[in-house]
């Protein structure tokens, strides 16, 4: 390694630790803003505390699913077209078990997790042994079946009308019945999700996943059980969707089949791909951007009705732009260090090799 390169690397390291500290502060500020804002205060566009909290809660719930889906897509190289179904299974488990059986919310959430994990296991075990994107087709089918069940099993799910009067989320007598409290719970859950995803990616299992994503054959030769690793990450991603679904049910206190259809599965894919599947933070950024954009369009749509219908077009354009210009998602923007941008001289061998 040349002296010049060492100096460049040292400078880069200092830069990146500075940037990292700034990023954490910024993130903390963004997360805390909706909580610290005064009740009467209005941000530009008439955005108040309540509204910000709601966007924050939805962003958080979506981000929890997106992080799991990002692990599946970016690390195991598999696509799920039915994550809305797992989200729905979590939501309906919480809804039905708390209203009809009177189970405590956390127990109902746990039951939802078990049900979802079981279904993911049954679906994934045979499919993930095959090469190729069979999982995408199987999850597409699952999404349709689950949607039919939500609509048709009226005795259980209330059909089109859904399940009402879902209790607040709470632990014992501690009820999270205000919006700021619920927002804090969602952010905390997202934080724990991110921490666990971080642990996973930087562990023996995570390394095995990244390895098999590059070459399944080489990973297997190294002793990695490829099918099992993919199955594990699929089940984890399904469980995270289920947890998010339970949170949704307790926030809305009402569930109906609508939000758990194919369209939302595609929305989730957009969040993950736009944000960046190969990282932990990418899907979070994708979820935030998705929610902010659709809310902004919705706000403008209140004045200019046709704008509200532009969301699909806009997401399409954003998706294409990201895939073409930032194939690894928006996070690549954040990962670009000042030292890196200066030129290709940093990795001369890589150039020669390519």
């Amino acid at each position, binding site marked *: *390694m040349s002296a010049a390169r060492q100096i460049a690397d040292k400078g880069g390291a200092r830069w990146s630790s500075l940037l990292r500290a700034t990023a954490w502060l910024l993130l903390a500020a963004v997360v805390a803003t909706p909580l610290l804002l005064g009740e009467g205060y209005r941000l530009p566009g008439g955005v108040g505390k309540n509204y910000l909290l709601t966007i924050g809660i939805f962003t958080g719930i979506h981000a929890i699913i997106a992080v799991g889906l990002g692990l599946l897509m970016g690390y195991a190289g598999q696509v799920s077209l039915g994550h809305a179904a797992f989200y729905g299974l979590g939501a309906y488990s919480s809804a039905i078990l708390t209203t009809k059986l009177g189970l405590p919310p956390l127990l109902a959430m746990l039951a939802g997790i078990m049900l979802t994990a079981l279904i993911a296991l049954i679906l994934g075990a045979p499919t993930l042994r095959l090469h190729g994107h069979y999982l995408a087709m199987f999850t597409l089918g699952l999404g349709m079946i689950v949607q039919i069940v939500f609509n048709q099993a009226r005795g259980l799910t209330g059909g089109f009308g859904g399940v009402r009067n879902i209790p607040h989320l709470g632990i014992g007598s501690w009820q999270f019945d205000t919006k700021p409290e619920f927002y804090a719970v969602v952010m905390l859950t997202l934080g724990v999700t991110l921490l*666990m995803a971080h*642990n*996973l990616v930087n*562990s*023996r*299992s*995570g*390394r*095995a996943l*990244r*390895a098999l994503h*590059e*070459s399944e*054959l*080489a*990973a*297997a*030769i*190294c*002793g*990695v*059980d*490829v099918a099992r690793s993919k199955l*594990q990450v699929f089940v*984890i991603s399904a469980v995270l969707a289920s947890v998010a679904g339970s949170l949704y049910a307790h926030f809305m206190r009402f569930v109906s089949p609508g939000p758990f259809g194919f369209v939302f599965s595609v929305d989730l894919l957009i969040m993950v791909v736009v944000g960046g599947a190969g990282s932990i933070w990418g899907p979070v950024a994708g979820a935030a951007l998705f929610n902010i954009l659709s809310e902004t369009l919705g706000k403008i749509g209140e004045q200019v009705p046709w704008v509200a219908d532009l969301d699909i077009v806009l997401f399409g354009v954003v998706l294409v732009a990201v895939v073409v210009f930032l194939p690894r998602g928006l996070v690549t923007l954040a990962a670009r260090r000042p030292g890196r941008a200066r030129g290709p001289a940093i*990795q001369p*061998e*890589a150039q*020669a*090799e390519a």
Partner: protein
Amino acid sequence: MHDCAVTENEIVLGFAEVSKFFGGLVALDGVSGEVFGGEILGIIGPNGAGKTTLFNIISGVFSPSKGEIGLGGRPITGLPCHKIAHLGVARTFQNIRLFREMSVLENVLVGRHSQASASLIGSVLRLPGIRAEESQLRQEALAYLDMVGLSERAEAKAGSLTTGQQRLLEIARALAGEPQIILLDEPAAGLNTRETEALGEFILRMQQELELTIVLIEHDMRLLMEVAERVMVIDRGHKIAEGTPAQIQADPQVISAYLGEEFAANGPPVQSTEERL
């Protein structure tokens, strides 16, 4: 004489009447053989003769269409790759298959997968012991990089290494699984003369210091004849000869099928091989 010395060792790997058909194509046709503990067995033959197919069958990439494979006396026919890896068979690839986007060190860490025990749940929850195992794994992985002289590039992306370094990294990754037998598929391909010489020395070190059994497919005859104690010749899916390098170089059938008259006449002197042994 050498045959006697070799056969005193026990058989680590055996394959009996192994055939592989791809549709109508016969890649291997009833090949039998054995590998003795601690030896270096060379496999030569023209391109497309079925050498790599044999490696693929031994390492579990393909199941044989017919025949049996045994490792240390137990049948492994049809077992998946990762199970065979856990039983102590490691290999490298003719067309290098590294995890190019991962760091050099991480490649070796994946190679050490079967030597670690951290479970998925344990890792996600970062249970006690995980961190200790992880730092121990890193130390061990660095030691393997040291062995092939790549520890200074530990943090570089594997894809940024030169071909010679990539071949060495692939060997380090294979060694990290602590195999009892290692299959090297044309490790000298793309290396210059100096690198090939270093590789030859390293192969001998692996045999002596790590007490490994080595099977080597190689087109570089000088390298092969220098390190191999026995040579097996495969042509069009059949084993056509087997013996010491000297015997193989004198075999008229091998000369006509593969070596050619010129090499038999001008190749590495037979005496040097004899001297080393």
